[in-house]
């Protein structure tokens, strides 16, 4: 197990390496530098600017320098926000984004699995139909439609929840709308997934055996059915988490959450090279670690999987 973990952890390195290399060269090959916007910069000043950011060096040297910096988790100064280093921006935003993401994932799993259980146990009765309908709607409504509509209803018309900003200004209430928006599609998918897999497990032989032994129905459902039925849900957690991470970019923009999603979009729009790179690295690390965790949890749930 420990060996497997170490091997998996080491296998992160090539993926990260590819992500960093790819995004580095993609950005450097783009026409127009980060200072293209300042139109009337005299040549000498431009040279100084380039020198300050080491952009006068040959590309490969810049690449090596950047790799070295990333290994030390130092992303350098931001090209746009002159007084901030990229590390400061990330350090400030990451806890906010993480708490939003983790809350959303928990909400999606808890609500999704509960709806899935109810729906499967009441198959083809009205709770089931409602659950299935909600699930398909959840999968079809894009985040950037869902978010503004919720803002419109709960923030502007009913005026019961804040439409933007974060805990520092509005308290924990500020988290409700962004987290609901972000978790809804994944809640919907998890509900569907767990419904289907519970239905399948309910028909399996070991459940028949458990019932034949005369176990109580609640024991059958909670101890036997759920454990078997959660496997597909756990597999889905990896994609769900990466979806939540990407989706948080939109949700943070819609709800003005001060995380790392908004700076990412901004940096992409005004070509803040160092910031884009850092964001991609941070997001990749989060995603890869999440996938690793999911794999490990999967192994704990399913004894048939052995780690070699």
């Amino acid at each position, binding site marked *: 197990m420990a060996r497997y973990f170490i091997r998996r952890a080491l296998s992160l390195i*090539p*993926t990260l390496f*590819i*992500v960093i290399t*790819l*995004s580095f060269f*993609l*950005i450097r*090959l*783009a*026409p*127009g530098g980060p200072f293209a916007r300042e139109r009337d910069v005299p040549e000498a000043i431009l040279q100084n600017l380039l020198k300050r950011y080491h952009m006068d060096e040959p590309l490969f040297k810049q690449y090596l320098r950047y790799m070295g910096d990333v290994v030390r988790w130092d992303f350098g100064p931001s090209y746009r926000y002159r007084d901030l280093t990229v590390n400061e921006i990330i350090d400030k935003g990451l806890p906010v984004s993480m708490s939003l993401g983790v809350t959303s994932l928990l909400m999606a799993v808890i609500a999704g699995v509960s709806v899935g259980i109810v729906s499967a146990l009441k198959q083809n009765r009205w709770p089931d139909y409602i659950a299935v309908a909600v699930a*398909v*709607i959840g*999968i*079809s*409504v*894009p*985040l*950037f*439609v869902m978010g*503004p*509509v919720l*803002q*419109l209803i709960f923030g*502007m018309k009913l005026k019961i929840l804040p439409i933007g900003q974060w805990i520092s200004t509005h308290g924990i209430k500020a988290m409700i709308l962004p987290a609901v928006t972000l978790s809804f599609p994944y809640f919907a998918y998890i509900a*569907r*997934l767990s*419904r*289907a897999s519970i239905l399948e497990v309910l028909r399996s032989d070991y459940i028949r055996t458990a019932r034949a032994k005369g176990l109580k129905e609640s024991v059958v459902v909670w101890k036997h059915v759920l454990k078997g039925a959660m496997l597909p849900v756990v597999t889905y957690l990896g994609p769900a988490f*990466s979806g939540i*991470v*990407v989706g948080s*970019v*939109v949700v943070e*923009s*819609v709800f003005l959450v001060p995380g790392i999603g908004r700076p*990412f*979009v901004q*940096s*992409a*729009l005004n*070509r803040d090279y160092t910031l*884009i790179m850092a*964001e*991609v690295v941070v*997001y*990749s690390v989060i*995603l*890869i670690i999440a*996938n690793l965790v999911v794999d490990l949890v999967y192994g704990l749930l399913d004894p048939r999987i052995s780690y070699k």
Partner: protein
Amino acid sequence: MANKKAQHAVNEFNQVMKPVSLWADAWKRLRKNKMALISLYVVSFYIIISLFAPVLTSMGILIDYRKQVINNASLPPSFRPAGELVVKKIEARIASLEERAKEKEQQQDAFSFFNFGAAEQPAEGGEMGDQGETGAFSFTYEGAGFSGNTTDPVIRELISQKETLEHVKAELDTNPDYKLVYLLGTDDLGRDMLARIIYGGRISIAIGLVGTLTAALVGILIGSISGYVGGWLDNLIMRVVDIMYGLPYMLIVIIIMAMIGEKARGSFVVLFVAIALVSWLTISRVVRGQIISLKNSEFVEAARSMGASTPRIIFRHLLPNTLGVIIVFSTLMMPSFIMNESFLSFLGLGVSAPDASWGTLVSEGVRAMESYAWQLLGPGIAMTIFLFCMNFLGDGLRDALDPQSKNRT
């Protein structure tokens, strides 16, 4: 007699059996699924409308989506002609302005009352007249309006609104712009929302279709070669696919869109290529799996023994047998394509003006949603219905084409 028997298969009771093809069988199953069938109709409706949108515009049924009528800006959805709505809108504005003017007047009364004797306060040029003695400063907007030298913004707007109202009323029967009917309202530049949604859908659906086709072709090609040839090539390709799976691809698409820059970004060729390049992974895995499970079957063996070449075996014998799975995956891929495209457009990294996709329309609607909710709800609902139906259709097709599928949810 013998001829007839050769044409139709016969069962053990000597009854003639009509052979049912896979497709006829699937169609029969799909027809039983009401939701999938309705979805199929809705999707076809969207596609037909999108295809014939220019015809509808030239016939005059649909208002030109680029036509800006500033006077008709931000009208609500209605069956009535624009002129009536404009009059109603201006009248409502005047009423609220009058309300505000009155409130202001009262406040000013109170203000002057507390600043008793401060006669230099109303330097606004209002008429103090004989009431100056009492210290109460009476300021009627009619008086100020007709004297024409007020600086109070409320009253100035009130006057100009009243002039506009006269103007609109005079032109109501002569100006063709006021005869237009905007079923879904207008945006902040006075463009027809219905036309914009239809044309936005054209772009979104086109990107979805072309992107899905590209991704499917790449995925089929790579997946089938990898599955059929096997060995080190298969290993290599699948490792590459694994690594690409690990990449946060939406983030890389964002980077690509950012580096391309404003000008090229507008062309949606770039957009769909960027998304398609990273979307072939799933389909290549699925095709590979299917090919591997089929490549040792008897009919492939037979083809090989008759000297068929590898491309012929792949394209004539193996791929047609995986077509069902490919269709199902493509149908389910299209909504995610449209969603990704709109996601980028929403962030300002996708389709740019004057073109608009559903994502652009939604992001424009968000800016105006507090006062003009229909500018958000129109494109939002249109898009959601389409995605909803595509998802249902995909599920229905999966049940129809692949009844033993384990992925049923």
